[in-house]
């Protein structure tokens, strides 16, 4: 195309050049034409001049010879004027120098001649002839000169025309050639275009079939997101047929949460960017989410405006799932390797680190990046020649499993290695057994002691475990009972050798003991009772390095204990039975007491009442002796009533439950004395010391004090200076209260009878009383956990004491 354009431009320039030449030629030609015209006119004027010169000459001669007529004069004048006009004309038009020169000569000659002619005959014939001849020659010169000029002009014009003819010919040739070339070019282009369209159509068909055959979804959309093309691959991936989707918005394919992202991408596309292999998610017709890789390109119209976007998306769901799966598997695997409590490394066959887990990094105090890619023996040169070194080399060379226990001095590390060859790699598990080794060393020292202890206690077991729950030592004949041998257990982890449910049973105990707790408990297995004792073993720095577990068969002890328990239980049952019986008896007794008090009192009332009636109704006929006898009957009946009342109270007090509170004994004593004096004030002096406050049942203590104080008053009443003293003191864990009097006292040999019911040491006539008061006192004090006792000397007074012990906190 560009070539064509240049050709066209050149052609146009050439044409313009030619036209310019033509124009110039035209100008030259018209100049020449003008000049020629002028020269021709000059020539004609010269000819005209020559003609009128001749006529003038003729007239002039005739004049001279014949004279003149008017008519002739007129003609002559006419000729003359014409000549002058011609000369003027010539004067104005002659340009040629030579001709001008000729003309000037001619003019002066002619003017001279004309002037002479006018004056007539002034000149001689000879002169006239000479002048005329000169004029003729000049005329001739002018005519021939102008003719030559015309001829020259003509020749020049011819020459120019010849040029022009060639130019036109060239022009025609060039134009024809251009037209031919253009025509050829156009026809060529047309056929080419026709050919291109065909190819294009074919190509488009091929493309369409490629597009349709593509497994990828290929579709396009307009700037507003409307889908306008849709291939088979898209139908397959998204589930929409072309008919269903074309005209719909692209948004139906985008998951809700990715709409914004899609808009952003579309904005970039609209700016002319291309997005390639962008991995994202899409929604299919049936709502499934799929992973796709999308390439989006802007579609431009012929002017370069972006009118839409073409999208190629590939369903990579499976790939993504697979990748995810692989990733998870990798993670899991790495996780497993990282979680291994042992150190774990993978080496290639050149002993370069391929993988190291955290544990081993911790063990050797290096970072993974310090090790990966390095050669083991360069990093840990001290290991060369060690058992581990040979084990690893041997494992690689023989492709057989190998293990070693080794001490690596630079790190102070006891390690147990297990090497698993696997083709081009070696997997090595490394366990730090330093703790175990150290514990073993410690245990070894005391092993004999443990053995001795274990063997000295029949049916026992001593077991020592390290912090990994590994048996370091196990001794004692109980082991047989468990069905294990020493060798099966020692050196192994408990979790590995005993059943898991059994291990889970003891695990809490192991945790406790390794937390530093010492404890023991009983357990029962196979009808044997075992005392389990867990003791943490600590080193010099109080670090627990092991635990001692002692099991002792205590079946015989346990059986004895059980027997005791059984006896206790039966005893308790018996006690409960007895208590129930006793309660029943008590109840019966109570009922009996009431019935007695009621039933005994009724006849007494009758005796008393009827004696009274007799006294009242028959006092006139009964003599004094009879009246005395009636009074005796009445008194005795009354006394018996009093006895029954006391007895009743005594029995009641015995049954009453204690209701303890802190009682201020000074206040209580004062209250008792006030009550005692009520209606019958005593003359006895009563001294009250500072008394303790004690935890007692206030009502019952009231009875006690009432009885003791009234007794003291009663028995000292007859002394010269009757005096009663009340005091208290704290002795050991008891408060001791005393009531002393200076009354009649009593003989100490009867002291044991003092507190018996109805026991009296004095006659009724001497000191009235029922003999129940002190019995009640004793009963109440005993209930309080205390004691009552008395000291006395006949006629020297008596001292009564009671103690209230401190309450035992339950």
């Amino acid at each position: 195309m560009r070539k064509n354009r240049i050709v066209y431009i050149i052609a146009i320039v050439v044409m313009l050049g030619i036209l310019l030449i033509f124009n110039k030629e035209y100008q030259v030609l018209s100049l020449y034409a003008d000049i020629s015209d002028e020269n021709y006119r000059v020539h004609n004027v010269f000819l005209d001049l020559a003609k009128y010169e001749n006529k003038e000459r003729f007239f002039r001669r005739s004049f001279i010879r014949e004279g003149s007529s008017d008519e002739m004069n007129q003609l002559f004048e006419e000729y003359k004027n014409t000549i002058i006009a011609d000369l003027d004309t010539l004067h104005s038009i002659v340009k040629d120098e030579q001709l001008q020169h000729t003309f000037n000569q001619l003019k002066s000659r002619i003017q001279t001649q004309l002037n002479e002619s006018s004056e007539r005959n002034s000149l001689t014939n000879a002169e006239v002839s000479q002048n005329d001849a000169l004029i003729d020659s000049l005329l001739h010169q002018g005519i021939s000169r102008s003719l030559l000029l015309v001829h020259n002009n003509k020749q020049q014009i011819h020459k120019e025309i010849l040029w022009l003819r060639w130019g036109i010919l060239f022009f025609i040739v060039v134009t024809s050639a251009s037209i031919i070339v253009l025509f050829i070019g156009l026809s060529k282009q047309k056929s080419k275009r026709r050919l291109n369209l065909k190819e294009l159509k074919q190509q488009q068909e091929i493309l369409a079939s490629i597009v349709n055959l593509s497994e990828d979804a290929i579709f396009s959309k307009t700037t507003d997101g409307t889908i306008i093309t849709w291939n088979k691959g898209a139908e397959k991936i998204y589930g929409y047929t072309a008919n269903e989707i074309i005209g719909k918005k692209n948004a139906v394919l985008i998951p809700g949460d990715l709409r914004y992202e899609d808009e952003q991408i579309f904005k970039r596309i609209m700016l002319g960017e291309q997005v390639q292999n962008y991995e994202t998610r899409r929604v299919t017709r049936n709502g499934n989410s799929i992973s796709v890789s999308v390439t989006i390109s802007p579609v431009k119209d012929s002017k370069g405006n972006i009118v839409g976007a073409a999208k190629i998306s590939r369903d990579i769901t499976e790939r993504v799932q697979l990748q995810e799966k692989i990733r998870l598997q990798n993670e899991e695997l790495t996780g497993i390797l990282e979680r291994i409590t042992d150190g774990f490394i993978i080496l290639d066959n050149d002993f370069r680190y391929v993988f190291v887990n955290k544990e081993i990094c911790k063990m050797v105090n290096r970072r993974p990046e310090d090790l990966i890619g390095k050669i083991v023996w360069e990093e840990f040169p001290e290991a060369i020649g060690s058992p581990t070194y040979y084990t690893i080399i041997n494992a690689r060379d023989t492709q057989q499993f190998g293990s070693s226990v080794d001490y690596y001095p630079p790190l102070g590390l006891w390690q147990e290695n297990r090497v698993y060859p696997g083709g081009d790699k070696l997997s090595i598990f490394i366990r730090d057994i330093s703790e175990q080794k150290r514990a073993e060393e410690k245990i070894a020292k005391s092993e004999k002691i443990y053995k001795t202890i274990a063997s000295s206690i029949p049916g026992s077991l001593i077991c020592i475990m390290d912090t990994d729950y590994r048996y370091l030592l196990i001794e004692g004949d109980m082991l047989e009972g468990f069905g294990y041998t020493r060798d099966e257990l020692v050196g192994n982890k408990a979790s590995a050798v005993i059943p898991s449910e059994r291990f889970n049973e003891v695990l809490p105990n192991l945790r406790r003991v390794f937390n530093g707790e010492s404890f023991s408990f009983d357990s029962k297995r196979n009808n044997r009772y075992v005392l389990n004792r867990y003791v943490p073993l600590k080193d010099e720095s109080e670090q627990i390095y092991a635990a001692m577990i002692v099991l002792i068969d205590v079946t015989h002890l346990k059986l004895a204990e059980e027997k005791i328990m059984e006896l206790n239980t039966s005893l308790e049952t018996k006690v409960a039975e007895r208590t129930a019986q006793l309660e029943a008896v008590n109840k019966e007794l109570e009922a009996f007491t009431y019935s007695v008090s009621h039933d005994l009192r009724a006849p007494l009332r009758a005796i008393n009442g009827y004696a009274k009636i007799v006294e009242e109704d028959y006092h006139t006929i009964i003599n004094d002796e009879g009246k005395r006898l009636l009074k005796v009957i009445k008194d005795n009946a009354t006394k018996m009533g009093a006895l029954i009342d006391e007895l009743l109270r005594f029995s009641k007090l015995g049954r009453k439950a204690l209701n303890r509170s802190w009682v201020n004994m000074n206040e209580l004593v004062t209250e008792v004395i006030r009550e005692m004096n009520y209606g019958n004030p005593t003359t006895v002096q009563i001294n009250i010391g500072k008394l303790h406050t004690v935890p007692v049942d206030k009502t019952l203590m009231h009875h006690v004090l009432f009885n003791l104080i009234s007794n003291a008053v009663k028995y000292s009443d007859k002394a010269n200076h009757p005096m009663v003293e009340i005091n208290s003191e704290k002795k050991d864990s008891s408060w001791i209260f005393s009531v002393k009097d200076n009354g009649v006292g009593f003989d100490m040999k009867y002291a044991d009878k003092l507190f018996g019911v109805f026991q009296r040491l004095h006659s009724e006539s001497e000191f009235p009383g029922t003999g129940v008061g002190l019995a009640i006192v004793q009963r109440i004090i005993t209930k309080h956990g205390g004691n009552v006792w008395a000291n006395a000397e006949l006629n020297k007074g008596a001292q009564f004491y009671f103690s209230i012990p401190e309450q035992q906190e339950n």
Partner: protein
Amino acid sequence: MQMNEVEILLIEDNMNDAEMTIRSLTKNNILNPLMHVKDGEEAIDFLFGTGSYSDRDTSVQPHLILLDLKMPKVNGIDVLKKLKASELTRKIPVVVLTSSNENPDIKECYALGANSYIVKPVDFDSFSRSISQLGFYWILLNQKPV
């Protein structure tokens, strides 16, 4: 004595006690018509017009009941329960007679609505005094609730 004129009902199985009670009241000029029934069963028959008292007009009831607790057949507590349970007899003041103030029945009697109690002392004088005071109080001073 007309049964419907009875103002004091004495319920007492012990004839001696009954005689002494009646004597005490009379001696102290409490001469209101008194009816003595021998046991609880008879008391209930009397109060509710049943049994041998079926012809009695039960709308007229005594103004005071003296009730012994310990009686054969129907005892005092049972009589009290019946009395207080019936609208007919609920408002009659009841004084309980007992041999001992240690008797746990006394509490129950109060709970059942007895108005007072008297211990029958062995000493006849004090017994007589208590009875007469009680009679005065309930018969003379206490207005029968209408």
